C-alpha cells in the first residue's frame, strides 16, 4: 500500500490544475480551499469549499444554494462524490485528479436533475435515491 500524499503536495497539484482555487488554511494534516467551478457555458458559477482533514476530503457548495433534498448529499450537505466501497478515493489519490473533477461532474448532473428530476450520473447501488 502506498503512503498518503502530503497536504502541501496536494495543494501544489490542486493549484496547478485549478489555478482559480485558493487556500484558506494549510497546515500539516489539514487544508481548506475555496474555488469556482462552472460545469458548462450556460451554467451558474458555483463557489465550492474543499476541506481536507486527516486524509479525508469533504466538499460543500457555498453558492448558489443547493435545492433541498438534492440527491447525493450527506446530512451535513457535503457532496457525496464517491462510494467508499469502490475504493475510488484513497489518501494516495490526488485531489485535483479526483475530488475536484468529481465535484464538477456532480454539479453537471445536479443541474440536469433540477430540470429533469433524473440523476444521469453513475450511482452506487443503494436505496433512497430520492428525486425532487
Amino acid at each position: 500500500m502506498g503512503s498518503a500524499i502530503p497536504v502541501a503536495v496536494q495543494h501544489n497539484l490542486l493549484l496547478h490544475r485549478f489555478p482559480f482555487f485558493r487556500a484558506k488554511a494549510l497546515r500539516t494534516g489539514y487544508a481548506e480551499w475555496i474555488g469556482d467551478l462552472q460545469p458548462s457555458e450556460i451554467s451558474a458559477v458555483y463557489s465550492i469549499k474543499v476541506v481536507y482533514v486527516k486524509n479525508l476530503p469533504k466538499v460543500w457548495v457555498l453558492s448558489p444554494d443547493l435545492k433541498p433534498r438534492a440527491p447525493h448529499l450527506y446530512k451535513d450537505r457535503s457532496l457525496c462524490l464517491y462510494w467508499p466501497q469502490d475504493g475510488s478515493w484513497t489518501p494516495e489519490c490526488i485531489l485535483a485528479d479526483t475530488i475536484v473533477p468529481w465535484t464538477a461532474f456532480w454539479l453537471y448532473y445536479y443541474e440536469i436533475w433540477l430540470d429533469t428530476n433524473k440523476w444521469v450520473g453513475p450511482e452506487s447501488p443503494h436505496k433512497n435515491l430520492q428525486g425532487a
Partner: protein
Amino acid sequence: MVIVHRLAIETDEVKRRDFMLNEKTFVTSGEFFAELLDSLQPPAERLEAAQKIPGNVREFLKTRSDFKTIFPYSHLVGSYARHTSVGDIKDVDILVYYDGTLQEKPRDVINCLRNTLSEFPEFIKGIGRAEVSSSRRSVHVYFESKDFHLDVVPAICTDGTENPIFVPDREDGTWIKSHPYGYVEFFSHFNERHHDKVRPLVRLIKHWRDMNMEIMKPKSYWLEAVVIALFQEKKLNSRDSLAVLFANLLSAIRERFQAYLAETSVPPIPDPMLGNNIAPNWERSHFETFMRRVDESANKAALALRAQTSEQARLIWQDVFVTAPSRKSWNSQPFKQIAQILPGTGFVNTLGRISDTRPASMPSVLSKPTRFHGE
C-alpha cells in the same frame, strides 16, 4: 444528554434552512437554453464559406499592385469574427489595410477597391458568379452560388492595428476613427473575464430581437454594446445561469432606458471602444416599439424564473423567444451528448467545464471513474 440536545438543535436548524430554501425555485431551464443556442449555430457549409472566402480575398489583394495593401493585410471583423452571429451566416465583414493616406478621398479608394475586386471571381475558380458593388463605406461582393455576402472595408492605419484606424464614414464621405479589430480582441477577452457568458447572451438577445420584431429593429451592434455596458456597470452578474442572466438583461434594458420614454429623444448607446454614441439615428418610434417588446418579455421572463417546474418554465421561455411549442424532450441532441459524458471518460478544464474531448484551448484533467453515493 447534552450531545443529544445539541444534535436536536442542529437538526432543527437544517430543517429551518430547508424550509426557507423550499420557498425558492431551482428551475434552471438549462436544457431549453442549450437547445436554443445549439439551434442558432450556423450550418457547417456556411461556416466553411465564411472561413475560406475572406482568406481568398486577402491572398488576391496581396497579388495586386492596383490596390496596395500593407501588413497585416486584412482582418476579419464583425459578428462572424466575434462568434456572435445567429443562425445562418450570410455575410462576413473584412477589413483590408490600404497602403494610402488620409488625404485620399474615401470615394476614390472605394472605387479603386471595387475595380480591383471585380476581377476577384476569376481568381477563385469554381466560386461561380459574383456581383461586385460599392457603397459609401465598403465594397460588397455577393457570391450567387453560395448566397454569401462579403463586405470589404478599406482601412487606413496611422498608428498600428492595436490602435484605432480610419474607415470611410457612412454619411459624409470622410475618414472616421474606428477600432473594429481592436473590438474583436476586446470582446474575446471581455467574454472570458465574464465566465464566457457575454457571447451567448449577445446571441440570445439578437435572436430574441429577430423573433419579436420584424421591422424597426435595433441594430445588432447596438444590442451588443448595451450588453457590454450592463456588465461593466455590474447590472449583470456573469456568475448567474444563462436563464437568470437573460431575464435580468431584459429587465436591466428596461430600467436603463425607461426614463427616455417620458421624453422625446432616444437614449445614447456608447461604443465599447471609443465611447461615442453609436445610435444617434435611432428613430423615436422604433425605440418605443423596442421598449414595448422588452417590457412584455421582461415580465414573462420574470415569471419563467419563478416557475415551479421546468415544464412551466419551458412554456414561458418558448413564448419569450416565439418558438414553436414542443413536447418536452429530454432526448434532445445537446442533452444526449451531455448524458454520455461520464467520470472516467470526460475531461474537466481549469474552469470546471465538462467535455467529452480534451479541450484545445485550456489545460484539462481526464477525470477518473466514480459512482456518486450519499443518503
